[in-house]
């Protein structure tokens, strides 16, 4: 019921937001003053180098990818191609590329640029983060290993026709929309000083990068979407400090700010600021992963007991300040395979005790819980669960680690339990494959989950060509996962962006709210930077 209310409220907010944006005619001109909230700087001017969201934020202005994320419909859409045909086995994609996409030096993009960009990303000596996506093209890993110079799965039919063969049946739209797979100009990008003033295919041209302070862009007049972008200029300031962003936003120096839970409460309570909040259920699932190598966690009843023993709703309300949606299973609210009728584990300590007794732990047990200081999915949350778990006899020993070390600890399997926020979309199949027994821990099966029935559902879903049937299989897999409880399903992130009343066209991007299609944004005449 609560979940339905939440989903309804979200839908209502989004609908109201969309209606508001549509009510006015977009205005041309002015400056958009955006913020990159995930650090004090951008890594570099080379979008292939960094996989951080911080860098994708500027990547969306400068570059275009083969696909883009259609935030309103929650699925990928073609960007640099006009159409695509898919082979019957679902592995070969033939793209009719745009013939009106011009790089910022005025040169027309061709299939060669895409082939060169993808080949560059697979350079084994550079370890570009986008390689994990391009590796799904046949022959890409040969380039990475140095046994081939060209990706055999990429064929140029003519300047504007490209054939791409994948290693397995998949929708490449889900992994070729990231800025780490940006299309760069093949010839120009090889110049030694190219990245001092890079060019791309995006809606905005690079003007300057003052490291640690700002990146400035100006409108690309020949952008392939007619009439776009609307703004003349875009300034993106890296601002990692939430408190500083708060002051700058209230002082009208920036147009958007991503809010933390403390600010979320304050902004919601403010009659003016509360009018400019965009809330989205992002594709991140906060969870406590349980290592089956630790004996108690090898028993499903113990894992279920943990889910019953923790009052997740209370923690979300009091600690996370309602800046999260209660998790049901792995797939988030925005997933098409999310079952709206499914109910989360209820808070039921008695049932938890009963399950523990059945599993042979009537007096409970003690385990070590690895956690970072993160306020939304770290030690503060673990500390809140300690008395709840103690009620059913489970003792928790907190093992603190630094955020940058957590991934290494988990990949090594050096934990009994951990708490983390993991991506659970946008592709539901890819997200659920993380729990397939053939997926190694180092890829994303962190709890080394193994269940034959689950594997079959995922295998069947992978092979299924009918979208509706595939969705049903994924729903079943997600339900099975909930029952098996390899993790404590805590919450789905509710990303909140505060925006100024003069900024329009924001998109509810569930993959990451801070990533916006700048060509759709516009500022009205009331903006201090309207001129």
């Amino acid at each position, binding site marked *: 019921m609560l979940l339905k209310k939440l989903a309804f409220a979200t839908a209502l907010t989004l609908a109201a937001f969309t209606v508001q944006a549509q009510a006015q005619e977009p205005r041309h001109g002015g400056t958009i003053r955006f913020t990159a909230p*995930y*650090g*004090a*700087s951008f*890594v*570099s001017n*080379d979008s292939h*180098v*960094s*996989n*951080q*969201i911080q860098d994708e934020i500027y990547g969306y202005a400068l570059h275009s990818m083969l696909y883009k994320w259609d935030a309103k419909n929650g699925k990928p859409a073609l960007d640099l191609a006009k159409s695509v045909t898919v082979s019957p086995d679902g592995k070969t994609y033939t793209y009719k590329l745009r013939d009106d996409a011009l790089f910022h030096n005025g040169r027309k993009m061709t299939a060669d640029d895409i082939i060169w960009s993808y080949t560059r990303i697979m350079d*084994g*000596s*550079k*370890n570009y*983060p986008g*390689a*994990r996506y391009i590796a799904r093209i046949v022959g890409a890993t040969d380039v990475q290993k140095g046994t081939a110079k060209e990706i055999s799965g990429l064929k140029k039919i003519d300047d504007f026709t490209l054939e791409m063969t994948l290693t397995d049946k998949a929708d490449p739209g889900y992994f070729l929309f990231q800025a780490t797979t940006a299309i760069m100009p093949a010839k120009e990008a090889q110049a030694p000083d190219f990245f001092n003033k890079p060019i791309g295919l995006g809606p905005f041209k690079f003007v300057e990068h*003052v*490291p*640690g*302070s*700002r990146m400035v862009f100006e409108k690309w007049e020949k952008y392939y979407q007619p009439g776009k972008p609307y703004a003349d200029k875009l300034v993106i*300031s*890296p*601002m*990692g*400090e939430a*408190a*500083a962003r708060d*002051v*700058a936003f*209230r*002082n009208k*120096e920036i147009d958007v700010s991503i809010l933390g839970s403390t600010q979320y409460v304050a902004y919601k309570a403010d009659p003016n600021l509360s009018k400019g909040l965009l809330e989205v259920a992002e594709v*991140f699932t906060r969870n406590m992963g349980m290592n089956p190598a630790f004996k108690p966690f090898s028993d499903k009843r113990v894992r279920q007991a943990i889910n019953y023993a923790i009052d997740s709703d209370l923690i979300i309300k009091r600690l996370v300040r309602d800046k999260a949606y209660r998790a049901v299973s792995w797939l988030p609210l925005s997933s098409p395979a999310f079952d709206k009728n499914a109910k989360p584990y209820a808070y039921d300590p008695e049932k938890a005790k009963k399950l523990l007794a059945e599993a042979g732990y009537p007096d409970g047990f003690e385990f070590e819980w690895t956690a970072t200081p993160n306020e939304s999915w770290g030690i503060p949350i673990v500390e809140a669960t300690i008395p709840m778990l103690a009620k059913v006899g489970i003792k928790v020993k907190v093992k603190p*680690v*630094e*955020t*940058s*070390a*957590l*991934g*290494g*600890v988990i*990949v090594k399997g050096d934990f009994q339990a951990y708490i*983390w*926020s*993991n*991506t659970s979309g946008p592709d539901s199949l890819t997200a659920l494959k*993380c729990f397939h027994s053939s997926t*190694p821990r*180092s*890829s*994303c099966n962190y709890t080394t989950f193994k269940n034959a029935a689950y594997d079959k559902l995922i295998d069947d879903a992978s092979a299924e060509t009918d979208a509706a049937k595939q969705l049903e299989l994924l729903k079943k897999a997600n339900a099975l996962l909930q029952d098996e409880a390899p993790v404590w399903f805590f919450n789905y992130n509710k990303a909140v962006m505060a925006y100024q009343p003069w900024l329009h066209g924001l998109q509810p991007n569930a993959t990451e709210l801070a990533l916006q299609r700048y060509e759709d944004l516009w500022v009205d005449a009331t903006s201090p930077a309207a001129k």
Partner: protein
Amino acid sequence: MLPYVSRRLLQAVPILLAVAALIFVLFSVIPGNFATSQMADGRSNIDAETIARMNEQFGLNDPLPLRFAKYVGGLATFDLGDSFRTRQPVTGLIGERLWPSLQLAFAAMLFAVVVGVPLGFLAALKPGSWVDMLSMVFAVSGLSLPMFWLGLLLMYAFALTLGWFPSFGYGDGDPRYIVLPAIALGVSPLALLARTARAAVLEVMHADFVRTARAKGAGSYRVMRWHVARNALVIVLTTLGLQFGSVLGQAVVVEKLFAWPGLGSLLVDSVTWRDIPVVQGCILTIVLFFLVVNIAVDVLCAVVDPRIKYS
């Protein structure tokens, strides 16, 4: 003077080497590395093969002594290596951040000296008066206030409420942008300088040579100008040197808060992502700055007070 300066610079070499060794060992033993830090956002799964390839690429699989030898070898040729994150030379990254950091450090110290030293002198001239009380309350508060909190207060007061200054950013040569970060960074050295100046003036005012000067009929201004101020200045200068040297390191918090594009914000991001070459480079630069400033202050002290010899 030149042999003295050369000798002091040579003495700085073992200090720099010790610092380099310390940072190197520290970042080799703490958990996590660049490859695993990429997974921190829970969004990017990096398989074991990629982690191994990255560690190989960055030489992290080499034995520690070999890595240190390579690093010191690079230092000898002013090569700080390449950043793991950006794949660019560390010297270049530091180069583009150094000037904004120096601007901020100089502005902060200018504020500290212009306000702090006269405040200390004033307080010492009328000990126990309301001027003394007020300036010392100000000094103690300045020393106790956390820089982050003070920065936020300044933002709220002068940017949000009064609208006099922008709350963040570097600007395009507009001096208004540096005012708030410089004040936030300068208040702590200001407080220390005020206290030091007060103590130094009080001490010198009770010295025999001051009493003699007064007994000889020298006027108050002459006594203060030629006897008290010059002698007290040596002590103030030494404190100033220590503060100036360390202000670059202290700027980390302020730079991050005000989105000031200096070494501090580069250092913070590099620590987060375990970009060890950049961390090492930044810390070495800060240490080098500290040493150079202190040598310069020693020289300056000798200029102010001829009794100090270059020995």
